[in-house]
């Protein structure tokens, strides 16, 4: 079921990494010259999805298992041993067991997905992930009827994760999705960035990416996936249910109690970066159907 979703553009089409700057100048020139109406719109869409640099993506992370500072993960995550690695898939599945990382990779088709990434803290990036659809991994284990939710768990290794010594959250980090969300073609298990293996601070060796939800839903360094009948507990919701709901869909209309979610700041704009409007579902309108008839203010 790979390739069920395609970017409007892929990086290969238009944005070789070292040409970003050139392209920006070219687009600037196009816009200034007002060349061809249709082209102008397309150019704007391309501009919006221009990925952040490797340095930006890998130096500004929230991964509290390595500390609460944004640069802590880049500094300390080297200590996490990611090979060998296996993911326990259990619960309501036909073939429960430990799935080795190599075994998984052999069975999966890895593709590139350039996604917007919106943190609940009102900053955002665009990340060129490499990965496979979660749906494919779940199919490998065989989802049983009766399963309605998917629970995820991050590695819990105090000897390799210094942040676990502090009770910032109730460790281990856990997350969850409704099964239909988990099976949506946008939902990705990322194993790489910029065609390189995903660095530890970004959730090596494999992490979830749900681009229409706030970043904390996209749980890192997954060791366990459990299919359940009931809604599983999720870490931030346990820590503060008033501020972090189970769904946590990106929604400019529903503010975090402590800050507005109407706008966001793209990382990489420097000290004078402007804010930009946040888009409903982070711009991924194709997921709206999943929530038809639901009050998204109640189910935030």
């Amino acid at each position: 079921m790979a390739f069920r979703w395609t970017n409007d553009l892929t990086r290969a089409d238009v944005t070789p990494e070292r040409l970003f700057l050139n392209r920006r100048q070219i687009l600037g020139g196009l816009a200034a010259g007002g060349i061809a109406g249709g082209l102008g719109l397309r150019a704007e869409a391309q501009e919006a999805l221009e990925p952040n640099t490797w340095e930006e993506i890998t130096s500004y992370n929230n991964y509290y298992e390595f500390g609460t500072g944004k640069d802590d993960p880049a500094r300390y995550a080297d200590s996490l041993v990611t090979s060998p690695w296996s993911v326990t898939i259990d619960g309501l599945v036909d073939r429960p067991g430990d799935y080795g990382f190599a075994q998984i990779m052999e069975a999966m088709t890895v593709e590139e997905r350039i996604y917007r990434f919106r943190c609940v803290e009102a900053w955002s990036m665009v990340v060129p992930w490499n990965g496979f659809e979660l749906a494919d991994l779940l199919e490998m284990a065989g989802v049983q009827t009766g399963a309605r939710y998917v629970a995820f768990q991050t590695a819990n290794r105090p000897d390799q994760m210094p942040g676990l010594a502090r009770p910032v959250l109730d460790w281990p980090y856990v997350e969850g999705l409704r099964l239909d969300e988990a099976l949506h073609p946008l939902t990705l298990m990322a194993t790489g960035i910029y065609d390189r293996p995903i660095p530890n601070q970004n959730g090596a060796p494999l992490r979830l990416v749900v681009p229409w939800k706030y970043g904390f839903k996209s749980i890192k360094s997954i060791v366990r996936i459990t299919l359940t009948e009931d809604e599983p507990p999720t870490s931030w919701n346990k820590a503060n249910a008033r501020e972090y709901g189970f769904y946590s869909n990106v929604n400019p209309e529903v503010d975090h109690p402590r800050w507005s979610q109407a706008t966001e700041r793209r990382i990489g704009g420097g000290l004078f970066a402007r804010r930009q409007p946040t888009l409903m579902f982070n711009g991924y309108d194709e997921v709206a159907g999943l929530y038809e008839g639901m009050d998204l203010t109640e189910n935030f």
Partner: protein
Amino acid sequence: MTALIDRFNGAARRVPTWPLYILCAIPGFWFFYLGLTGGLGVEPIKALEHKLGELALQFLIAGLAVTPLRRHLGVNLLKFRRMLGLVAFFYVLTHLLVWLLLDVQIVSQIWADILKRPYITVGMAGFVLLLPLALTSNNWSVRKLGPKWRQLHKLAYVAVLLGAIHFVMLVKGFQIEPYLYLAAILTLLALRIRPARRKVAI
């Protein structure tokens, strides 16, 4: 020990205050420079905001420490207290300006935040309380206000507490650092409470 403290007090008396204003403000300008040149990481706005806020709290705490140090250890830094307070205010003000101009940017959102977000309401209240204190931190005001000056400047205790509570309220999850600031402030305030005097002097 007493000899050491006396020597320290003697040395402190000879230190002029005005260069310290410049010296203590340098970190603020340094962090701004770092923010401009990439030294604060890929999201320099939040980083600068947080650095200035922390510096503000640190100088507020330093100012709060002057009286207990004198009373309990005999270390006399009284002549630096105005400087510490004004430098703290400089950091509170620049912290606020970074939040207004670089972080939130949008006027309607700024108002909404001040009214709707308790941690911002608390922080703003702290700033508003410090404003008259900064404006009256000069010899003319001390003379003019007389005993009322002392009364007025007790507002600092409330403002500092609000600053620490602002920090406690804004972090995500349970983090120890803001509680350390709060504990330091509560300790310094507690050290000011004099036991009721039994003996009447003179």
